[in-house]
């Protein structure tokens, strides 16, 4: 009897996590809420990504067994395999992972801000503008500024223009998309014009890059992209709870104490950074930004905003598309941009034609 009346008072009741979540208490005042389904989904995607990496590193004109690939990755294996894996195949694989993740994450962010599945950086013309600026720095002006910086400037310019032309409606509504499509078309034409002004050899060497390819990558640009991507992913983790509010109406977002303008600006800056840096590496492979987040949303069963999953699916799509492009008509190599266009094009049409209750995002 006495023992019972001395049981814990009300305010010491044990806090339990909401359905489907796990509570992580770090000390008295720090609690993190972790969604189990998201963890499971991302772990699976990471496993798939690891398998795809090992497979890709083993494939090519000199096949290497998965076992040997893993040995090499852990610092063993014979000298020949080490050379092929480390010096020939790994840089391209990293470029694929980084660009795929960057495009796809940027796509997911922009779709979320615009509340429209069509609003990806590729469709808004950011890819093309980034490319036009980068190409112009190489061929047009005769001065070769760092393509990353130029691509970033191009991405920012296109976004600002699309914003300006969209008027009061901001990133929401079709005006933003229509304005962006126009900007993308103009930027594409500018690139063609610039390439037509230079010698055929220069134009030829720039060609794969302008359609999107991982064969012309610059190691420095890959490194810059890797750093940029890492930074953006960390920023996304910090901002996840605010991004999660974006599907609500503006009234609700403000009512819950979030600053819509700030969130939008941050998200756009992230989109510009990711897209600009990725274009500097691989050219415009923007359709990954359409396909990657969609796969992530299907895996997440249309719940929440799967930013990390989008990055992972984007990396997977890019690796597979590049692998396909390298092997299907080997020894001829199809640029990855063309492979994703062949997959992504019909998909885009399907989105436009299909009408469901979920067309809002």
């Amino acid at each position, binding site marked *: 009897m006495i023992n019972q009346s001395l049981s814990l008072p009300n305010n010491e009741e044990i806090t339990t996590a909401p359905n489907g979540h796990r509570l992580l208490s770090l000390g008295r005042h720090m609690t993190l809420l972790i969604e189990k389904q998201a963890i499971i989904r991302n772990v699976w995607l990471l496993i798939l990504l690891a398998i795809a990496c090992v497979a890709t590193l083993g494939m090519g004109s000199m096949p290497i067994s998965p076992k040997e690939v893993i040995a090499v990755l852990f610092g063993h294996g014979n000298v020949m395999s080490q050379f092929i894996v480390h010096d020939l195949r790994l840089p391209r694989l990293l470029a694929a992972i980084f660009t795929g993740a960057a495009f796809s994450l940027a796509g997911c962010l922009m779709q979320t801000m615009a509340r429209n599945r069509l609003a990806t950086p590729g469709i808004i013309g950011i890819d093309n503008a980034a490319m036009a600026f980068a190409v112009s720095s190489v061929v047009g002006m005769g001065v070769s500024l760092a393509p990353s910086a130029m691509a970033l400037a191009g991405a920012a310019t296109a976004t600002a223009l699309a914003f300006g032309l969209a008027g009061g409606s901001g990133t929401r509504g079709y005006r933003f998309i229509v304005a962006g499509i126009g900007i993308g078309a103009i930027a594409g034409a500018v690139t063609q014009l610039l390439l037509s002004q230079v010698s055929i050899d220069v134009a030829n060497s720039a060609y794969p890059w302008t359609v999107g390819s991982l064969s012309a990558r610059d190691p420095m640009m890959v490194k810059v992209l890797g750093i940029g991507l890492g930074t953006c992913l960390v920023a996304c983790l910090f901002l996840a709870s605010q991004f999660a509010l974006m599907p609500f*109406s503006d009234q609700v977002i403000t009512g819950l104490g979030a600053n819509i303008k700030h969130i939008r600006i941050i998200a756009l800056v992230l989109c510009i950074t990711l897209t600009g840096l990725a274009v500097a590496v691989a050219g415009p492979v923007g359709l990954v930004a359409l396909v990657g987040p969609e796969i992530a949303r299907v895996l997440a069963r249309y719940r929440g905003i799967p930013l990390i999953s989008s990055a992972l699916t984007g990396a997977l799509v890019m690796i597979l598309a590049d692998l396909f492009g390298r092997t299907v008509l080997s020894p001829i190599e199809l640029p990855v941009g063309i492979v994703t266009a062949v997959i992504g094009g019909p998909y885009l049409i399907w989105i436009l034609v299909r009408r469901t209750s979920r067309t809002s995002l």
Partner: protein
Amino acid sequence: MTATSLQFKQTSEINNLARLGAERLTLKHGKASIIENLDVSLPEGKVTAIVGPNGCGKSTVLNGLSRVHSPSSGVVLLDGKDIHSLPSKEVARRLALLPQDTLAPDGITIEELIRFGRHPHQSLLKQWAMDDQQAINYALNAADLEGLKDRLLDTLSGGQRQRAWIAMSIAQETPLLLLDEPTSALDLGHQIEVFELIRNLSRQGKTLAMVVHDLPSACRYSDHIIAMKKGEIITQGSPKEVMTKELVRELYGVECDLIPDPMTGSPILINMKRVRS
């Protein structure tokens, strides 16, 4: 967790009343001024009902008061400070708005929706605590949604969805609550339940304002009525003072007689006829 412990927590937390008002407030949609030089303040710890015909600017005023709609001129004062100068999250801990039109993320359950109401109380390192859990349980109970909490919002009826949104603003646990037509889609039973909940919240010391179209309910469940027409407040005061057949005629172009409810004394409208002025 018992109902009494919840009740206790709700009352004990509200120690300071919140004051909300506006001075010379002008709100525009594009170029059109919807509200001009409006002075208004909500009586503390009371329920205020805002009535008026469609399009007279009730929602616009609520949006202005809750800093969702920025004023072209004038100022909204929350506890004596310009609401736009306060950090938005801080405002969200003092003031909740239930908008008239709502739009929720896809594939969200009722409980998840209500959980968003806790956003202003959470931070990167404090993502879930006992008060979140208690507030959500209280809100689920108050809106009679315990049995539905795991249902998808899209699969609910309009009234059930409206109750979920009400629960979300209750879970925000603010001393000030602005509700735009909270009962427009509810059946009689749930209407009364929501009105009684509103009364209850005001007894706990909260300040509430609601837009209501049903005049008898407005009179019965509020302490103060603000009557609006064409962006202006034409009269305000206690229901008994304000509600007259002349006001009904002026607001809605409806002739009627008012009789007191034999039980509560609050006015009931009979013999209604549209006259259009």
